[in-house]
């Protein structure tokens, strides 16, 4: 389904992503771990086409999405939703509008510019908000919400896009444990219910082990581990995280894992 072949991205001398290949055959939830600066964000951004890769190809349903130009590129971005660490909502617009912006790609420019959303669009957005427990905030401005709420709105916006692939760049890094759990559970639920592949950059090892079916470890822009979570030994993990190991292992003690240790089994 998704096949990443020898992708590299250089910033001048810095090899942010270096000759990375990933093959995703069936829909799965993938966690990417690594210390900061390992190139995790850059990898996701090249997949979404926010940044252009230096070399390599990314095949999705046998099409090289790096060759897409203009309209095709925008349509790819519509199919490949992205969730950010800082939520990247529009702070001064209300929550509902923020969610409906996920449909921008399918709207005509004039209609979008005048904010003439159809009642289907409005109700679809409301349904999504309801699903993630955010309905009551629909008419509030996004900037008035807490971080966890904003991230859930961002997930609603992503779902509004009707994506075939979801990328999440450290979605819980700036959230408190409870909200972190809610967000991770939401992503897992999306994957389980709709069979959408989710690729998620995570900083804490434990979260990755809890929620993902497959873990990819990155170090200096290269993949150093790619297997089932159970295959990741503590020693390997320490190697991947290097000096940040203690911080990454600390996640074990947060509530993310406490109550949801068995989420994968129940799902």
């Amino acid at each position, binding site marked *: 389904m998704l096949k990443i072949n020898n992708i590299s991205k250089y910033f001048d001398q810095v090899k942010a992503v270096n000759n990375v290949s990933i093959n995703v055959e069936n829909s799965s939830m993938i966690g990417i771990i690594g210390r900061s600066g390992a190139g995790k964000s850059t990898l996701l951004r090249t997949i979404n086409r926010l940044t252009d890769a230096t070399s390599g190809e990314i095949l999705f349903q046998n099409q090289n999405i790096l060759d897409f130009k203009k309209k095709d590129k925008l349509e790819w971005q519509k199919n490949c939703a992205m969730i950010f660490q800082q939520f*990247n909502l*529009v702070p001064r617009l209300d929550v509902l509008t923020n969610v409906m912006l996920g449909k921008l790609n399918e709207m005509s420019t004039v209609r979008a510019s005048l904010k003439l959303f159809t009642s289907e669009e409005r109700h679809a957005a409301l349904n999504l908000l309801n699903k993630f427990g955010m309905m009551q905030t629909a008419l509030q401005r996004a900037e008035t919400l807490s971080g966890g709420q904003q991230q859930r709105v961002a997930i609603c916006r992503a779902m509004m896009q009707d994506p075939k692939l979801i990328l999440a760049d450290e979605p819980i890094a700036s959230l408190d444990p409870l909200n972190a759990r809610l967000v991770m559970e939401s992503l897992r639920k999306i994957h389980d219910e709709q069979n959408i592949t989710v690729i998620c950059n995570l900083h804490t090892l434990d979260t990755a082990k809890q929620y993902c079916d497959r873990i990819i470890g990155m170090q200096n822009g290269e993949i150093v581990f790619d297997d089932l979570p159970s295959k990741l030994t503590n020693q390997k993990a320490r190697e991947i995280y290097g000096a940040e190991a203690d911080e990454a292992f600390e996640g074990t003690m947060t509530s993310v894992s406490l109550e949801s240790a068995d989420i994968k089994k129940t799902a």
Partner: protein
Amino acid sequence: MYSDNILGFETIEKNLKAMAFKRLIYSFISILAILFLLSSGLTIAEENNAGSFQRGLSKFFDYPVDLFKEAFESGWRWYAYVFKYLPDLISTINMAFFSTLFGAIFALLLSLFASKNLIKNQYIVTLSRRTMDILRSFPELVIAMIFLYLMGKSELPAVIAIVIHTAGALGKLFSEAIENADNKPIEGLQSCGASWWQRVRFAVIPQVVPLFISYTLLRLEINVRASTILGFVGAGGIGEALSAVIQFRYGDEIIAIMFLLVITIISLDYFSRFLRGRLIGDNK
């Protein structure tokens, strides 16, 4: 160790003293330069002025006093003059409003192309910035007089001149505001497959609109003054009325018009301050 420390303090103190001395010298030089500029400038002014400074100073109150005397003598009729010139005043305010509106629209278009975070092509950015620099460097009067000469007396030349200047002046402020806007929402929309214009419309404009409105209100106030002055040189409105009554030396009417102008400017000042306060407060 101990002696090392002493030495360290000494050098630090020496450096501090040297810095203070340097600052003192700079301040001294700038004060001297300003004094020199003032004295030589005023000397040149005195030499080239038609009347001398002292005589002028003593006559400073003569003209206003004469005017007020006439206004006082005309009694109740004076109030009628105030109403007589109200339509001219409205015409001037409308002139300013119209040109501010369209100046702001052009400024918005220009500023999008002059913002580095929206346009990746450096040449387009530089070109738009230079264009704005040129647009706002011409005094309105220069452009207005040329157009007045080419198309005869009307309000249009003044409107054109003010629109041109406003587009340049606001464009610069607008593009600065856009460049200071948060990039995260822009990226967020980009990742959804929003086009360039859609990103501008939904990620940039909502962020900058309070600032834009407040700048535009400030401009409106400036433009009311400008359109009065342009009226004075032939572009209609209350400026032209003022110029006419000054030629005929109708003291009472001069005072009536000046009264209207001052009231307008002061109330506009307060009104726009109030609105801007609300907008900025809203922003927080």
